[in-house]
Structure formats: C-alpha cells, structure tokens
C-alpha cells in the first residue's frame, strides 16, 4: 500500500466530514429562533417590503433543505454576502485570516523553539533540573487561565516596558500589495504562488523587502505568540521528552549499537522513531492556533478570524458565520490531513 493510495483514501474521508460540519453549522443557524433579518436591519428601517425582500434573497421563507442547498451553493460559488456590510463575506474572511495565520505561525515557531530542545535535554538528563523545569512548565501551562496570563504579559511588556503595542496589525505598503496582486497576470503559476504567499502581511512585506514592516509585525505579535507558546510549551516538551526516552531505550536502538553504527546514525534512528508523536502533537497545536485563538485576539485586540467568528454569531450574521466556520473546519481538516500524511511518510506501518 503506497503513500499516494493512503493520501487518496484520506482525502475521500475528508468530504463527508466537511459536509457534516456544514450541516451542523446550518442546524445551529436554523435552530436559532430569533429572526435574524430583524437583527440586521433594526438600526435602519422597518419597511416590511424591504424586510421581505431580504428574507427571500436569503431564502428564509423557503423550507430548510432549500435553505441549506442555497447556503452550500453560495459557499462554493464564493458568493456569500454579508448582509450588514453588504460585502462578500469571503473578502472579510480573507483579510482577517492572514492575521490569524501570522499569529499562529509565530506562536508555532516559539513553541518549537521552547519545547523541542527542552524536551530533548530533559530526556537525556532524566530527573535533572531541566527535567523538573519541564514538568513545572507543563503544570503551569495547563493550570493557568489563558486570559489571566495575557493580562499579565500585557502588564509586563506593554505597561512597564512599553515593548509592544496593542492596536492594529502592520501591513505592507499599498504599492507592494498592488505589485503582488498583479503578479498572477504576468507570471501565471509562479506569480500565483508568490501572490498567495504574499497575502500574509508579513510574507508580503518580506518579499517586497519592506523589513520595517516585518519587524513591526513581530513587535506587535510577539507577546501573544509567546503567551500562547508558554501555555502549550510545557505539555509539548513533556511529549518530546517521553517520546525520546521511549525511542532511545528501544531494542532496535540497542541493535543499532550492536551493529556498530556510528553514533550519528544511532541518533538518526532514535530521532525518527521519536518524531511521530511529536509531529502529531505539534500539528494538533497548530491546527488549534489556526482555528483562531479567540481569547488572545480579544485581549490583545488582534483583528483575526477567531474574533470575527465570535462577532458574527453574536450578531446573528449567518453568512459570515457559515463562511468562517467553513474555512476553520477546512483548515483544521487540512492540518490533520497533513499531519496524517507526514505520519504515514515517516511510519510505513500506518499506510494500511
């Protein structure tokens, strides 16, 4: 059973899950008894004909299966319309997702920097001070309420040291943005890829060479990213430690030594074996981060996807909700898919 076979099979199981997620979202939206249309237009007019028009436009007067079909088809056409702001929901989502992505990526980098070396050292020097520290960090990370940590990080980094700020997110200049957006026309494939990568503000700025934007972004986001990494880091470090310990003491490593393999090759074997649980846990963490850390975005005032989702449902903005939930679910499933594929790439036994 080869790797490609495995990938295809996994993608196939993907589809019913996505449909299930959409259906669940729909049920939730449908189950809310309050009349959303009134909520949308309440500030403006109460002209019943306009309300009726909106209702039929969004098919609220049609039976539920028609509504569901309408939503799904709008979704795939990418034409979900935000009733409050009269824009395509996806424009809004795609402007906010990159910010969440930046934050998640930075948090992931911090997480890896903290947890992997700590975990390895804790494994090599079992029961040492480092090992004890890893246990302590894991305990601390899972007992501390996240919002309390965020407030304290703000206290330290913003109030006392003034080493960060709490408004907006830096973006590359307009000229840079227009250049990137026009690339796909001149160079179809490569241009498309670069443009896509460049849609994430920090990457876009890096491509254009606007390094001040890059540093500003880091300055803006490093405190929440560090907080997120601290909350999860201890736990991941423990997994790294245990995974390494298991790998090093396994019989196949003794056999590797008995075969007289060079030290670096013995390590290669141990490391690869230890990798699987580590990849899983880091992948899961990244998926969670991408799904939008709503609390972090709230406390640090970051205009990301998590906050957008929260706002959309409090305002009963269904198209926005459906659009964001769809994106989040897809992301989560993609990340899981990638983790599974990596897993299968490393461990051939999984391919069955």
């Amino acid at each position, binding site marked *: 059973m080869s790797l490609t076979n495995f990938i295809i099979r996994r993608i196939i199981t993907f589809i019913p899950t996505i449909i299930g997620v959409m259906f669940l979202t729909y049920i939730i939206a449908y189950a809310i008894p309050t009349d959303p249309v009134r909520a949308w237009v309440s500030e403006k007019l109460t002209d019943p004909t306009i309300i009726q028009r909106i209702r039929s436009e969004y098919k609220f007067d049609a039976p539920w299966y028609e509504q569901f079909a309408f939503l799904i088809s709008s979704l795939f056409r990418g034409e979900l319309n935000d009733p409050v702001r009269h824009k395509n929901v996806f424009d809004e989502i795609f402007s906010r997702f990159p910010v969440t992505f930046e934050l998640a990526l930075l948090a992931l980098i911090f997480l890896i920097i903290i947890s992997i070396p700590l975990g390895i050292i804790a494994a090599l020097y079992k029961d040492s001070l480092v090992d004890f520290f890893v246990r302590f960090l894991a305990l601390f990370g899972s007992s501390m309420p996240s919002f309390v940590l965020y407030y304290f990080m703000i206290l330290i980094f913003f109030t006392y040291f003034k080493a960060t700020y709490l408004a907006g997110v830096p973006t590359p200049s307009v000229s840079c943005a227009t250049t990137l957006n026009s690339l796909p026309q001149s160079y179809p494939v490569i241009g498309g890829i670069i443009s896509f990568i460049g849609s994430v503000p920090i990457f876009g700025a890096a491509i254009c060479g606007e390094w001040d934007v890059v540093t500003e972004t880091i300055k803006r986001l490093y405190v929440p990213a560090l907080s997120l990494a601290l909350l999860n880091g201890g736990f991941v470090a423990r997994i790294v430690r245990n995974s390494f310990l298991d790998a090093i003491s396994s019989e196949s490593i003794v056999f590797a030594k008995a075969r007289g*393999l060079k030290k670096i090759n013995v390590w290669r074997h141990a490391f690869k074996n230890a990798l699987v649980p580590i990849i899983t846990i880091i992948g899961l963490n990244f998926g969670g981060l991408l799904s939008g850390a709503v609390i972090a975005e709230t406390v640090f005032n970051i205009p990301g996807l998590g906050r957008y989702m929260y706002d959309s449902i409090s305002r009963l903005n269904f198209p926005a909700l459906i659009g964001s939930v769809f994106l989040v679910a897809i992301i989560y499933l993609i990340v899981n898919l990638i983790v599974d594929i990596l897993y299968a790439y490393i461990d*051939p036994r999984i391919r069955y």
Partner: protein
Amino acid sequence: MKKEFTDKHVLMVNNLTVKFYTYAGVVHAVSKVSFEVYKNEIVALVGETGSGKTVTTRAITRLIESPGRIEEGEILFRRRNNKIVDLMKISDEEIRRIRGDEIAYIFQDPTSALDPLYTIGEHIDETIKDHRFIDKKIIRKISIDLLRKVGIPNPEIRIKNYPHEMSGGMRQRSVISISLSNEPVLLIADEPTTNLDVTIQAQILDLLKELVKERGMSMILITHNLGIVAEVADRVYIMYAGKIVESGDVYKIFSRPLHPYTQMLLRAVPNPLKKIIKLETIPGTIPSLIDPPSGCRFHPRCPFTKDICTKQEPPMIEAEKNHYVACWLYK
C-alpha cells in the same frame, strides 16, 4: 587458573562480572564468568531465564547500559588481522568498529530488533557503510546477495520491504543477513529461534550451521533448549544464577552430566543420547541475584548438598579431558 590465549582461540573471557544497580538493590547478574571460543566452532551457552546468558554476551562488546555496569573482567579477542586485544580496554570508537564488523549479534526478537521505519535494505546498507568504504551500488549488490544467501526468495524485491511486510521467519533471516554483512569473525546468536515456529526453527538452525562452517566463523549460541544444543553445538557452557557450573564437549556433557543442575536439566527433557524413564522438574526457583545464596548458588535446590556447599563456592576443575565442572561432589 589462568589459561593461555593460544593460536586456536578467538575469544577468551576471564572473570567477567556485571552488576546492575537498581531500586531494589544491587543485582549480581554475572559473577566471575570465564569461558572461551575457538576458531570455527559453535559454543552453546545454556541456562534458564535470568541465568545471565544475555548479559554475558552483551558485555563482550560493552553493550551494557546504566543501571548496569561491567565491574571487572578481561575479554581477549583475536581480531581479523590476528592482533589480540582486550575489549575492555580499547577506546569507544574502536569497539564501535568491531561491533557489527568482527563481532556480530543476532537478537532474539527480530521484530523489536529491526527499526520499523526503515527497509531491510537500508538496515544492511548502513551496517556495511559504517564499517567499510564501498560504493553505494556495490553495497546494494552485496545486500541483495546476502538476502539470497539466507534463503529469502526474490531478494531484489524484498530488499525494499519494511519489517512489518515480512513474516517472522523472514525477519529473522533478515537479521541474520544484517549480522553477516561484514563477514564477522564471531557471531553471537541470542536465542535466534525462540520466537519462531518449530518448522522455521529447524531451517534457521541449519542455515546458521551451514554459514558458520562455510565461512570459518565461530558462533556463541545462547539457548535454553537442549535439543538445539545437541543439534548444533560443539561445546557447551551451562550457566546458573550468573555463574558457569559445567562446561565441555557436547557429547561428554550429554552422556555423562556431572553437575546436579545439568543432570536435572537433562532429566527434564527427552535426551537424544540416553533413554530416560520419567521427565522430572527441578524443585524451587532460581535465586534472587540481589542476595545470592552463600557458597554454591545451587545449594538450595540441590539434592546432594553438603555442608561445604553452603559455605564455599566450588572451584572449576577439569573432571576429564574437555569436561569441566564446579561442584563439591568432584575433586
């Protein structure tokens, strides 16, 4: 009684002692064990689980890890270039070179010995690569030939297999091919057939016998199965509770076992050389090695215990030519 390392010797172990420092206390796994292996012979190391057989053989190439420690011992080995070295004294890098090249191991459970994330080919290739400077393509050829030699059909295809894609017998054959890859001088096989079906057992044993004789290797075969010993071995060492209690030519031991433990072992299984009426068990269990019995370690279970057995350890004496025993019954 220090023997001389002659031309015929490949390995000589003198007074090997290995202790394990555990939460429960110090485990005297191997206590002053001495044995030797000559050129082109198969030596069997026999004993129950916990007698110290595996620890002894792993100690030969310093494969003992914390909490175990090799406390004392001299391990003289004749290298391929005929130089004689004490494996306890050479550097870490030198012993790494010897492992897998001049002294090779076959582990008991091929499934746990092989790394599930690498193909058989990769296992063999890297074992060769870390010891010799040969071109990659030639290494591949050698690996395929090795698989063929150990009786794996379609080796060109099998070489790309992962361990989980093979049956138990094939895995063990693969492990054997890994061990033989650098044409070792000494092969240490730790219960190579215990985890296999009986029919496969016979095939593997025949294979090992043939390879050893063909390549002029020596082999230490660890087993608790006396049938295998009778099949394959030239000489036998019987271990009990971390000590060697009897040793010698296989025929002599089977036809005239001297040590009470050996006698009881032979009475517990059908003996190909002698007719016995009834199979018996040995009463009691092996002693705790944290607090071994005083004097002769077998005395609590021995039907012939004398007073001196509880006080002093019996020395190893030559009872007849090529037949040694450590027991107060003999002088």
